[in-house]
C-alpha cells in the first residue's frame, strides 16, 4: 500500500506548490501539508502530495548502521 518515493524539491512554484525531481523526471506537486520547505529538500511524495520531509541526517545514520551490520559479516 501507499506507493511513495523520495523526490527533491527543485523549485517553489507558488503557495503550497513545488516542482519536484526524481531521476530526471519532474512534476509539480502539492506541498501544502508541510511548512518551511526549501529548494534542495527531499520529500516523500504520494499521489502528488509531499507527506513528509526526508531527514538527510537520519538517512545517513541508517546507512551507517546498515554498513556496520554488513561489515560484521565480511
Amino acid at each position: 500500500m501507499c506507493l511513495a518515493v523520495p523526490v527533491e524539491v527543485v523549485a517553489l512554484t507558488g503557495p503550497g506548490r513545488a516542482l519536484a525531481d526524481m531521476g530526471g523526471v519532474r512534476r509539480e506537486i502539492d506541498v501544502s501539508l508541510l511548512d518551511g520547505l526549501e529548494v534542495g529538500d527531499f520529500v516523500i511524495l504520494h499521489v502528488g502530495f509531499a507527506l513528509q520531509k526526508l531527514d538527510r541526517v537520519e538517512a545517513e545514520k541508517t546507512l551507517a548502521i546498515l554498513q556496520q551490520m554488513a561489515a560484521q559479516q565480511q
Partner: protein
Amino acid sequence: MKYVDVFRDAELAHQLARHIHQQADPGRHYRLMEFCGGHTHAVFRYGLPALLPDNVELVHGPGCPVCVLPVVRLEQALELSRLPEVILCSYGDMLRVPAGKGQSLLKARADGADIRMLYSPLEALTLAQQHPERQVVFFAIGFETTTPPTAVLIQRADEMGISNLSVLCNHVLTPAAMHAILTPREGEATAIDGFIGPAHVSTVIGSEAYAPFPRQFGKPVVIAGFEPLDLLQAISMLVGQLNRHEARVENQFSRAVTPDGNPKARVLVERMFERRSSFEWRGLGEVPASALKIRPEYARYDAEQRFELSAPRAREHPACECPAVLRGQKRPDQCRLFGTPCTPDNPLGACMVSSEGACAAWYRYNRGRIAMQERE
C-alpha cells in the same frame, strides 16, 4: 535516484541476510507480518524470501486498500458510475478490481460509464470545473497516507465553491486493523510474533501510534522503509527484539518517520473526517472504529449523503479462508479454493485481488511449485 538506490545495494543485502542467518535462533520460528502490501510487493520484487533463513517466515498482512475494500462499496461506486450525470474517478489500482458477476470499473467503462483514472485527487477539481453540468465523484480509497490528500481536495473544493464534486470515502485506519489481527478469535492463538510497520502511513501518523501493540499484546513493531535493505534491517531488528524477549516500537525509517508524524496533515484529517463506529474489511470482517467518514459539516461533499446508494449484501465465498490468512492463522495454500478456482485472474477473496494480496503474492511466487504438484 537519491535515497533509493543506496537502499537497494545487493552486496549489502547479502551481508545483512547473513547477519540475520546468524541472529536467528534455529530452535525457534519467527513469524513476522508485514502489514503493508507495499512491503509484500517489495518482498517478492526483490526475492527476499530466498535470502532469509527458513525459520524466518514473512506473513502477508491486509495492508492493500483495494484488497480490503468490501465488494459492497465497489458496487456502490459502480452504481454511481452508471448514473449518466456522474463522472466517477479513482486511482488506477481500483479500476481492475472485480466486483460480483465479473464486473469492475474497467468493464463498466467499456459499457459506457464515464470513469476516469486519477494520479492525484486534485485532478478531480479540474474535472468538476471542466464539467459544470456533471457530478464528479471521487471514489476515495486508502490508508492514512492517502487520507490527507483527500482532505485537501475537500478543503479546496470548499474554498473554490465547487458544488458538483463529492467523495465516496473509504479511508481506513491501520492501527485498528492491526488490533483486529492481534485479537484472537475463539479457538485461535495469535499466530504472529511481530509486525513490520508501514513506513508511509507512519510518516503521517507517527511511530507513537503503534505504542499499544507492544503494551497490550506484547508484540514488537518495527516501522520499515520499502527498500530491500530497509526490510532486511527491520527483520533483523524484529528478530533481535524477539531473541531478547523485548516488545517495543522501533523506527527503522527514521529518515521520514517521527514520533508524531505530520501534525498538519493530522489536524486537517481530523477536521474533515470522523471515525465510523465500525467498517467492514474484506477478509477481516467488521472492525470497530477502523474507518473514516466525512463529518456532517462537510456533508455536501459526501457522496453517501448526496446520492441514494443501495447497500447490497456482500456475499463472500463461504470457503474463502481470507480471515484466517490475514490473521496469519493459515497459509494461502491451505485454502481449498487456492489455485483452482481462485487465481489472480479470477479472485474469489480479498487476498487474491491485487498483486500485493497475500494469496496473490503466494500464488505468483509459488506457482511453479503449485503447477507441478497439480500435474502429479
